[in-house]
């Protein structure tokens, strides 16, 4: 990922220089009062200097949320979440930073080392105050200049609300309405920040856009809100997350991602999610309830989701495509790895509304330890959608005797011209395969990693090159302790 390397290089340079500007303002720790109420939402909105329409939108979502019930259909179980015993807004806290890497959990450092993450980046990820201050302003400015030359807007969501209200108003909630589902509605009420991307007509975004750009904006992850709009004939590739585990004290995450692709536009969205999965005994870990949806609004548009999910204690996530434009195409490539006591319920929805729309789903679930790994998918063909094609391949791999894998595919075809294919397999890493690899000199864990990486190959190939290399290493690391 060249963009990331550039960021790191820039950071390195900055770290090498003596910081010239000093702290301009000392950001105080400011928290909303505990619990969730209209006052909390007003507090958040006021903190962000939001216009009235944005506050109204949040409040509308909140009132809706009060009427809703937590969904129970996913194959996951967790203790009840007390929504009144949480903070919904917390400004970046300087004092929360650690003084040096010595204070960071050694396990985390070991993982960084295995992933080959440069020191400065390690410090950023672990939340250590970097001495030669990471001047976010100048780093971001470098990229912004490049992007501005072609008219691409890439900025924090809160900035977009202020600077580009006409775009935000037009597209916000147009894919995931504020009333969509329990967690999306909660997000709509309290979202902290996120990314906004707009690619003008005919523009091919000159670089991979990555959340790494926003690495400085800590503590925005809990209720993240992302909106990407690709105008006619444009292209963008967006990378979310990173392979390194990040320090994070929020247990509940409920993000919303909306993608809009207009005529002939293409959006490629790649995610690596490696949040704290809980320890070997299943204690702790993040609950990840995400709503991700893309709308192929224009004819011949294309949206492609690629995800590598290895973290979180509970994952509830179904990146979907609404194939509205005639001839549009949706893709979903997924690797979901669960180990120890992790629970994953993930998949996709392909909603075919337009003619000649096609979709492709390739899902690879790997379960180890005592984990549970469910693929849940929907392929829906509406009455007027002629000549729809779908291909679904859903493979599960089990490691050890105590994990489980489940496949729950829903198919609804209301037009007789649709051609839908579904293939599913469940397999175990065989003793024979392990023996064969080990006879060639591979230690047991390396043998498992090699076999699993082979199993995931179709999906790994979809990732941008450097991301794919990191993801391969991540696959190996996630499965440590799964053999023997």
């Amino acid at each position, binding site marked *: 990922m060249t963009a990331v390397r550039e960021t790191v290089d820039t950071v390195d340079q900055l770290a090498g220089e003596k910081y010239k500007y000093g702290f301009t303002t000392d950001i105080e720790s400011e928290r909303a009062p505990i619990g969730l109420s209209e006052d909390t939402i007003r507090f958040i909105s006021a903190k962000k200097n939001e216009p009235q329409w944005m506050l109204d939108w949040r409040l509308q979502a909140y009132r809706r949320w009060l009427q809703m019930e937590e969904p129970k259909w996913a194959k996951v179980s967790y203790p009840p979440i007390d929504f009144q015993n949480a903070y919904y807004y917390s400004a970046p806290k300087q004092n929360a930073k650690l003084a040096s890497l010595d204070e960071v959990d050694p396990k985390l450092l070991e993982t960084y080392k295995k992933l080959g993450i440069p020191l400065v980046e390690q410090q950023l990820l672990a939340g250590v105050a970097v001495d030669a201050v990471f001047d976010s302003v100048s780093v971001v400015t470098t990229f912004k200049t490049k992007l501005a030359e072609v008219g691409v807007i890439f900025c924090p969501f809160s900035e977009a609300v202020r600077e580009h209200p006409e775009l935000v108003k037009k597209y916000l909630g147009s894919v995931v309405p504020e009333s969509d589902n329990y967690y999306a509605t909660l997000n709509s009420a309290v979202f902290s920040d996120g990314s906004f991307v707009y690619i003008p007509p005919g523009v091919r975004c000159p670089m991979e856009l990555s959340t790494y750009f926003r690495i400085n904006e800590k503590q925005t992850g809990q209720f993240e809100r992302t909106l990407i709009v690709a105008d006619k004939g444009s292209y963008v590739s967006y990378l979310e997350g990173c392979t390194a585990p990040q320090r994070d004290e929020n247990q509940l995450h409920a993000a919303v991602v909306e993608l809009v692709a207009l005529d002939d536009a293409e959006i490629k969205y790649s995610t690596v999610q490696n949040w704290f999965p809980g320890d070997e005994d299943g204690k702790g870990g993040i609950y990840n309830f995400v709503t991700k949806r893309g709308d192929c609004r224009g004819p011949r548009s294309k949206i492609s989701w690629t995800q590598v999910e290895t973290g979180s204690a509970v994952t509830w996530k179904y990146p979907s495509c609404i194939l509205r434009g005639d001839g549009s195409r949706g893709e979903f490539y997924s690797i979901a790895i669960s180990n120890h006591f992790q629970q994953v319920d993930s998949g996709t929805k392909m909603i075919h509304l337009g003619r000649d729309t096609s979709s492709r789903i390739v899902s690879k679930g790997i379960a180890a330890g005592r984990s549970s790994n469910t693929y849940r998918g929907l392929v829906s063909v509406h009455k007027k959608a002629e000549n729809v094609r779908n291909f679904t391949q859903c493979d599960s791999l089990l490691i050890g005797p105590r994990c489980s894998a489940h496949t729950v595919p829903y198919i609804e075809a209301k037009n007789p011209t649709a051609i839908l294919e579904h293939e599913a397999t469940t397999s175990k890493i065989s003793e024979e395969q392990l*023996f*064969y690899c080990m*006879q060639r000199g*591979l*230690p047991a864990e390396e043998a498992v990693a*090699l076999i699993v*990486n*082979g*199993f995931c190959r179709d999906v790994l190939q979809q990732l941008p090159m450097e991301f794919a290399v990191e993801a391969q290493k991540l696959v190996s690391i996630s499965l440590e302790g799964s053999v023997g």
Partner: protein
Amino acid sequence: MLEIKNLHVAVDGKEILKGIDLHVGAGEVHAIMGPNGSGKSTLSYVLAGRDGYQVTEGSVTYKGRDLLAMSVDERASAGVFLAFQYPIEIPGVTTMTFLKTALNAQRKARGEAELDAPRFLKLVREKSKPLNISDEMLKRALNVGFSGGEKKRAEILQMALLEPFLAVLDETDSGLDIDALKVVAEGVNALRSPERAMIVITHYQRLLDYIVPDVVHVLSKGRIVRTGGKELAGELEKTGYAEFAA
């Protein structure tokens, strides 16, 4: 090189090998022949260290070390190689990737530096050529959709690349037509050297026309019942295993 003494092995409580004694010196090629069910494959798996084969008695010494105390991958890195009768498919892992991972795992275990991509590529090309293994085949997932001949050639390629000290070839001739057999045998012969020992396990004498052994053993019902020179194989071809089966 290899010293097997009074080796007894059971599988699921059933004794398969009932006291094997075998001495294989460096540079020697030994053939082990015998009817189906005589324990030939069991012997190869025990040497490689596969799970489920319990040594109930006896010892195996390899280059002065207790082989039975070593794990599967330790044995491999110490130079023990098994060419499988039925090579295993590894979906999604190209032959090239597999070879590189295996070679570097062994080099790492021996404290040697890993080979970088250009040097590795050069080495693989050099070893592949005599075995008629194309670049296209190296890009395919290992053993997936390979023909019988391709699988066996891929095994010999691995052997050539890993340069073991003790190679055990388990029924390498099975499923091969005569042309494929010749290619494989040439590959094996090219690896014969004064510091390398080989154990060639086969049901048929045919393979031994091409890989000429120094010593031939006949295994029957878990025991070595006869040992002789290469002419013993020809004799067996005429008489069959009937006399040993009794």
